Structure formats: structure tokens, C-alpha cells
């Protein structure tokens, strides 16, 4: 079998019609996972529906309350948006780490999320930022938090024919920042052995008033570790709070041992990454003041 049809709809309604019943169709955003999957025999769609001609799917918009990123907007476009990298530096860090310059030129946060790799870089950063998925399907629209969108390794919550339209992130309130860190043996061109995304809010005294901590590559899906966030809230991010957050993520981590690293190492290092990411986010908040 091979791809028999390439369709390039110009609107959401055209896209839904083009996709059809869905079993043999694949959505195409940046293609950096789909085309590799086809090449290596893991994916075999007969119809490919390109999403990049649909304005809504590549738009990046910021209003008073939210940052909205079209599901097919390339990482490069997000990284070079005039506002997003300064508003959400951790999300930018994550997107910048998805492969080479060539890959970030094509890949999208939406595609990275839909591909649902346990090691996807953008997913912990999206979860930490409380991102929501706007989904359009034959039955209408629905909204899901990112942490509920991924249901298993390479499995997402989209029903046949459903389409991820955009990611909606709450616009960070003053005193808020985020950070993403991952561990890879190389500096680039690698898959996370472990990843950590955090978003924290500090009041003027430096006390943490809100925190979300998410980890990647240490469980079948990226995880929101609520106890880690709770350990930080109310603290000045002192050693005791950091230790508690690290202990919480290590307790939540359920990694496997594979070619990218043994389980014990992943559990250890995800704690290090979380504590460094918190420190980075804290430094960003302080720098902004």
C-alpha cells in the first residue's frame, strides 16, 4: 500500500469532508513524525490531508486571557512570534528542542501532541502551562486539557474524523514563568531520556502561589504531577519545598528501561530536571521584576 491521495483543504469544513470516515486517512501538519512513520512502515495511510492551508490551523493569536496556537503552526513560527517566546519561554524551550532547525521548521506543537510519544518535548511544557485542546469532530467541538488528551504511548483521545484545531494556553499572569528541560546524551538531535516542564507564579515576596509540574519520558504518557505543584505552593521555593517536589515527581515516575536509558536513571534524573526547571522559572520571574 502507499499514499494514494494528497488533499489540501482550505477550510475546516473542507478538511472534515476531505478526511472522510477516517480509517485510511491521516492528517498532515509538519509531517516530521507521519512521513518517518510511513518510511519505516509504522504508518500506512492511503489518504493524507494537509492542514497547513487552513488559516485557523496555523494562526498564533494572543489576547488578554489566552495564547492560542493553531495545531499545525510550526515550532519555528511559534519561536519567532513576537510575543510567545517571552510570554512562555519554557514552551519555547520545548519546541526548540524538537529536533534540528530543519525539524522545527516543520513540526508543530499540535502534531507533537497528537503523535503522543511518551518522550515528546512539547507535552510537559503544554501541561505545565495548563493548555487546553480545542477539538473539532463530526459531532461538533469539545475541549480537553492536554494531560487528558494523551491516553497511551502514541495514542491520543481523538475519535475517527476528529481534528485538533488549536491549543489554548492561559496567558501567564504577572509573576508567572515557565521552563522546560530535558536530558539527552547529545545536545541536539536526540529523544528525551527524561523531560520536565514547570510553570510557577510567585507573589511579590517570592512566595509561590501557583505551580504546575509535568514530566515526560518517564511513564507511558507525560504526567501532570499535582503533588509536586502542591509541594511548592505556599513556600518560598526553599530547599524543603524543592526536595518535596522532587520526591513527588520521582514517586510519580514509572519509567521503563530501554535503549534510551535505564528506569532508575530516568527516575533519578527527572527529579534533577524538575528542580533545575523550577530554579530557571524562578530566575525568569525575578529577572522580569
Amino acid at each position, binding site marked *: 500500500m*502507499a*499514499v*494514494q*491521495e*494528497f488533499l*489540501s483543504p482550505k477550510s475546516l469544513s473542507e478538511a472534515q469532508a476531505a478526511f472522510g470516515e477516517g480509517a485510511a486517512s491521516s492528517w*498532515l501538519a509538519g*509531517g*516530521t513524525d507521519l*512521513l*518517518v512513520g*510511513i*518510511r*519505516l512502515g509504522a504508518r500506512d495511510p492511503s489518504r*493524507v490531508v*494537509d492542514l*497547513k492551508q487552513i488559516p485557523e490551523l496555523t494562526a498564533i493569536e494572543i489576547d488578554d486571557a489566552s495564547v492560542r496556537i493553531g495545531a499545525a503552526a*510550526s515550532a*519555528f513560527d511559534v519561536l519567532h512570534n513576537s510575543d510567545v517566546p517571552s510570554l512562555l519561554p519554557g514552551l519555547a524551550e520545548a519546541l526548540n528542542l524538537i*529536533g*534540528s*532547525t*530543519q*525539524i522545527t*521548521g*516543520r513540526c508543530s506543537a499540535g502534531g507533537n501532541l497528537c503523535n503522543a510519544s511518551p518522550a515528546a518535548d512539547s507535552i510537559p511544557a503544554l501541561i505545565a502551562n495548563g493548555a487546553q485542546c480545542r477539538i473539532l469532530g463530526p459531532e461538533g467541538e469539545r475541549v480537553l486539557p492536554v494531560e487528558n488528551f494523551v491516553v497511551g504511548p502514541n495514542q491520543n483521545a481523538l475519535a475517527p474524523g476528529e481534528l485538533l484545531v488549536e491549543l489554548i494556553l492561559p496567558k501567564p499572569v504577572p509573576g508567572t514563568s515557565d521552563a522546560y528541560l530535558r536530558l539527552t546524551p547529545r*545536545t*541536539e*538531535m536526540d529523544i528525551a531520556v527524561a523531560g520536565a516542564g514547570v510553570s510557577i507564579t510567585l507573589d511579590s515576596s517570592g512566595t509561590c502561589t501557583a505551580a504546575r509540574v509535568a514530566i515526560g519520558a518517564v511513564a507511558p504518557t507525560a504526567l501532570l504531577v499535582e503533588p509536586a505543584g502542591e509541594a511548592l505552593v505556599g513556600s518560598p521555593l526553599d530547599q524543603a519545598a524543592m526536595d518535596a517536589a522532587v520526591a513527588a515527581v520521582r514517586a510519580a515516575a514509572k519509567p521503563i528501561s530501554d535503549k534510551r536509558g535505564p528506569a532508575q536513571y530516568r527516575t533519578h534524573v527527572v527529579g534533577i530536571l524538575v528542580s533545575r526547571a523550577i530554579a530557571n522559572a524562578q530566575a525568569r520571574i525575578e529577572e522580569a521584576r
Partner: protein
Amino acid sequence: MNKPLNKMAVQATINGERTAFLCSPGQVLADVLRDELELIGTKIGCNTGDCGACSVLVDNRLVCACLVLAAEVEGKSVQTVEGIANGGELHPVQQKLLEHGGLQCGICTPGVVVAAKALLEHNPDPTEEQARYWLAGNLCRCTGYDKIIRAVLDAAKTMRGEAA
């Protein structure tokens, strides 16, 4: 089992020239450039976006041609290594790679040329670290990257009009 030959007609500007080609719906741009348009400067080292030898610019965006469907470039502008020199005049990146000995076997060189040109248009004054990260997706097994990076930074200097 006679299968219909399922081809799409695509029009694009390739290295400044309006071009039309036929491709299969699943055919990647790298294959069309090499096999249909005889632009063999776009090299294939992995076919999975991991080596950067097939780097090209699509609407001035640096991508791996092995990870773009040929049908996607309809109406777009594609620049390959063959289109980097301006007539008889080499791009400074090409010239400096030659002067610094920034190539050995040369299989990664077309990709490096395209990626480095994109870097210097994006950032005319990159640090060594910025150049190294931008080019991290262009694998070279021969040079250890030393002379490539030196050549790219020297080309940047030339393009900024500074003496080398």
C-alpha cells in the same frame, strides 16, 4: 494487477525558475528533486530527517526535503544547493568552505551550504554556539565540524562587510 499510475501535477518555483512536475501523492520532495528534476545536489543520507544532507529551503524555510511531500510545494518557492550561487559567483558560505577546507568527502556539504545560508539570513552575526546549534541537524562524519564552523563564521563576517 494493473494499477493506475496515480500522479499529481505540481507547479512551483525551483531555484528561481517556474517549474512543473508530476509526482505520486506520497512521494517526498527529495525524490522529486533528485529523480524528476535531476537536482542531485540534494543528498539522501537517512530519509528520516536525522542527517540534514537533503536540506533545502521551501519559501525560505530550512527543511529536510525527505520530510516534505512533493505535493506540498505547490505554489511555493524551493531553493536547493544548485540555486545558492549567484550565477558564476559563489555564495560566501560556499567560498569560505572551500578556503577553510571545510569539507572532506563532501556528502554533507550541500546540506551545510543551504543550512548555513539560512542561518546567516536569519542571524547575520551568530556566535560560535549559535552556529553550532543551528547546524546540529547537519551531520558530518569527516570533519569534526571545526572547519565548517570556522568557515560559516568567516562567511558571516564577509557578508557583514568586515575584513576576514
